[in-house]
């Protein structure tokens, strides 16, 4: 199994639910997207002359930035959901596990919806 591509293809489509490495893959793909989107957003914020409403609103509006920002929110929530799921599965025992997983999933979807809606509201403000 020294060849990672062969190691990957050996597990794809396997597992009890026949989804194999789906969780693993999406975690890596969102990580890759966030590698670009995360630094883009934090550097854009840092480069603002100040954090006045006008400056921040200027950064958040505009078709290009709104698109990137909604992608950032979606990738963050998806990546976070996958990560928190693994942490909960590792450390939470018994009946609390499923409850925590459900709450976490709902909260992540809620955050994604609220975040994208806020980005759209800023984009279509005028």
């Amino acid at each position, binding site marked *: 199994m020294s060849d990672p591509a062969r190691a990957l293809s050996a597990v794809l489509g396997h597992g009890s639910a026949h989804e194999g490495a789906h969780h693993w893959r999406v975690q890596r793909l969102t990580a890759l997207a966030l590698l670009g989107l995360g630094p883009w957003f934090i550097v854009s914020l840092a480069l603002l002359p*100040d954090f006045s*409403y006008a400056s921040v609103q200027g950064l958040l509006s505009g078709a290009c930035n709104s698109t990137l920002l909604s992608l950032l929110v979606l990738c963050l929530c998806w990546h976070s959901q996958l990560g928190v799921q693994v942490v909960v599965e590792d450390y939470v025992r018994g009946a609390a596990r499923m409850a925590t997983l459900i709450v976490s999933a709902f909260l992540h979807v809620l955050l994604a919806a609220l975040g994208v809606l*806020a980005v759209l509201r800023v984009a279509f403000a005028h």
Partner: protein
Amino acid sequence: MAHRPLSPHVFIYRFAYTMALSILHRATGVVLSLGIVLLVSFLMAVAAGSASYERFVHFAGSLPMRILIGGCIVAFCYHLANGIRHLFWDLSWGMERAQARRSAAVVVVVTVVASALLLWVFFAHGGAMP
């Protein structure tokens, strides 16, 4: 049942700083999950207009919020740098012990430099944050 050895056998190993870095990846990930709440609140505040944004800025200027924001900035830098290390491992690059130790040192240096720069910009430079 409770006393059987459970994998991973964390406590039978001599402590290495790469172990601390490994668990820090999870810890910073969880902190950053909380940071999403912060980011979405920020976006919602901007969306709701200038008055609500001013309230958010005032709220973000309180000491606990400044600590949370600062913590998220450091966690972001660490999780990003160490995440790149993980992605290289996924390609099975740099898995030898000496390489893993070297990349760990690089991650720490990158985190310290990038965090210091961002914290300076966000908190000190030009009074950008109240």
